[in-house]
């Protein structure tokens, strides 16, 4: 119809080519940059590990690992660096916190995913988000003002009177700054964390399973116990392990209420000195004592490795749990 143009517009053609070339150049450059940046997390992790290892090296060379990990005397000025009291302190506080937190969190998660109506859920979930958002020093402040006096004035005397024969409840520590206080504060802190993971895991069970179970006359709890539980057990364990790892690495809140006494505790009312508190209280000062700084970075390395182990375990359990669900 229209007459063919007598002359092809060369300038348009070169203009389009130029634009295309610049777009392609931008794309190539972006592709390289994005790929390069994706190595950043791995690089950061390796650098953190390397820096801690290099700085911890002097003490690792001078003392045997067994000497460090199982030594129970901590006198840096005399060159004695036994980490056992701190490892024991961390374990006591963490394990006791999980004893409180794990059942409560899993029961809450079951309620949220299996029982709660949407309106109830919409009411409870923000509460849990708030609990997760509160900074750890605020938990610590609450611990100092509320939990410590409560443990000192009510819990310790009462349990000591009722169970005088149990060494677990016997302690000469008259202050409330104790493992129990640390564990209670820590438990409240990790609860929202475990609830969130457990809830996500429980939601992966298809609706049809519930319906089938309820249809044959099972109660809701029976459905949870015989249908949901076997499918999510791995995921729930992973959630608890991740919570344990969080609790193990928590610093400020625990530091404020746990008493910080480098002895191996024997009772839940004894003071303890977790690894994290050791670093927080001493690092950055006292650098004149030989090997002290190296010892503290060795304890940071130890902390990192323990937490790393927990995380890898949890990741494996979680992957297995979700892989089965998808298959």
């Amino acid at each position, binding site marked *: 119809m229209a007459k063919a143009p007598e002359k092809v517009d060369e300038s348009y053609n070169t203009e389009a080519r130029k634009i295309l070339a610049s777009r392609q150049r931008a794309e190539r450059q972006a592709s390289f940059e994005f*790929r390069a940046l*994706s190595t950043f997390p791995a690089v950061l992790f390796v650098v953190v590990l390397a820096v801690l290892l290099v700085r911890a090296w002097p003490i690792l060379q001078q003392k045997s690992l067994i000497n460090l990990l199982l030594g129970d005397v901590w006198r840096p000025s005399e060159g004695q660096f036994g980490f056992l009291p701190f490892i024991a302190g961390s374990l006591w506080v963490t394990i006791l916190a999980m004893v409180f937190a794990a059942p409560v969190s899993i029961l809450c998660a079951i309620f949220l995913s299996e029982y709660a109506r949407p309106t109830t859920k919409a009411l409870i979930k923000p509460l849990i988000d708030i609990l997760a958002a509160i*900074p750890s020093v605020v938990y610590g402040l609450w611990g100092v003002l509320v939990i410590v006096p409560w443990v000192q004035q009510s819990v310790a005397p009462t349990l000591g009177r009722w169970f005088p024969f149990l060494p677990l409840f016997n302690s000469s520590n008259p202050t409330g700054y104790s493992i129990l206080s640390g564990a209670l504060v820590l438990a409240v802190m990790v609860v929202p964390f475990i609830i969130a993971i457990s809830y996500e895991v429980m939601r992966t069970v298809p609706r049809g399973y519930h319906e089938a179970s309820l249809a044959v006359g099972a109660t809701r709890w029976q459905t949870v116990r015989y249908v949901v539980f076997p499918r999510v057990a791995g995921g729930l364990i992973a959630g608890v392990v991740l919570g344990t790892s969080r609790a193990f690495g928590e610093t400020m809140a625990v530091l404020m209420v746990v008493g910080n006494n480098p002895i191996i505790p024997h009772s839940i009312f004894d003071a303890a000195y977790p690894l*994290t508190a050791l670093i927080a209280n001493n690092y950055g000062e006292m650098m004149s004592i030989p090997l002290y700084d190296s010892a503290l970075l060795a304890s940071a390395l130890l902390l990192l490795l323990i937490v790393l182990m927990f995380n890898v375990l949890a990741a494996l359990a979680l992957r297995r749990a979700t892989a089965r669900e998808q298959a």
Partner: protein
Amino acid sequence: MKRITRRHLEELIAQGLMYLSLALVAGSLGWILITIIERGAPALTWDMITKTPQGGFYLGKEGGVLNAILGSLYLALGGTFAALVFSLPIALGLNIYIPRKSRWALLVRSVLDVLWGIPSIVYGAFGFTLMLALGMRASLLAGIITLAFVELPIMVRAMDEVLRRMPRDLENASYAMGATRIETALRVVLPQMLPGLVTAVMLAFGRGIGDAASVLFTAGYTDRIPTSLMDPTASLPLAVFFQLSMPYPEVQKRAYAAAFILTLLVLLISFLSRWISARLSRYSIK
């Protein structure tokens, strides 16, 4: 008949335990908030938020916590910005440039999980060592860098969660029109996912502002307001931590006020991020 009563009893016990657990959790939250308000609200005077501590280093009984409020904002804003500069490309790269199910993507995500699990005190010790190696003193800049390490994995993971839920069709439509990947990332994916990304940034900001262990050695502590990146900086969490252990009620009051302000800020950020996300998502294609 016996069987039915037994399983119903079991149901009742299970439900009872669930309600008890919920009550414990909600009760603890209420108890914490009440404690903070009860102690913090009376301590919160106009002087408290407009003045720095006065009447002597550390032990001064007058003035307020302005140094900590501003210090915390500087630290958290700086740390969040630094983390954002790295997080956004990493998250976009994970979802656009690197094949989703590839080994590399799996590895990067696993490493991010590991970084996310590292306690902030370890980042603090690492940051301090790094700071000494670079010949710096405890300062705002060192605090910002350390905080960025803490926030980075939180931000990337949250962004990745958001980007993974992006409708594939939208991306494919963009490619079909002849757009390159970077054009798709910046002009299609970014605007579409903006509400979720903003939420991720605010989540990291909230974490950053409340984190004490990472800035404990690196940011230092001072009564003054920092005027340059090389000045030491106070922060709200450390204001709570240091001033609570002082034997003077006037100084402890500042700790309560700081805790109250910090909690208020964190809750505000949490609500704001919900609101912004709801508001911005009006413009995205559902």
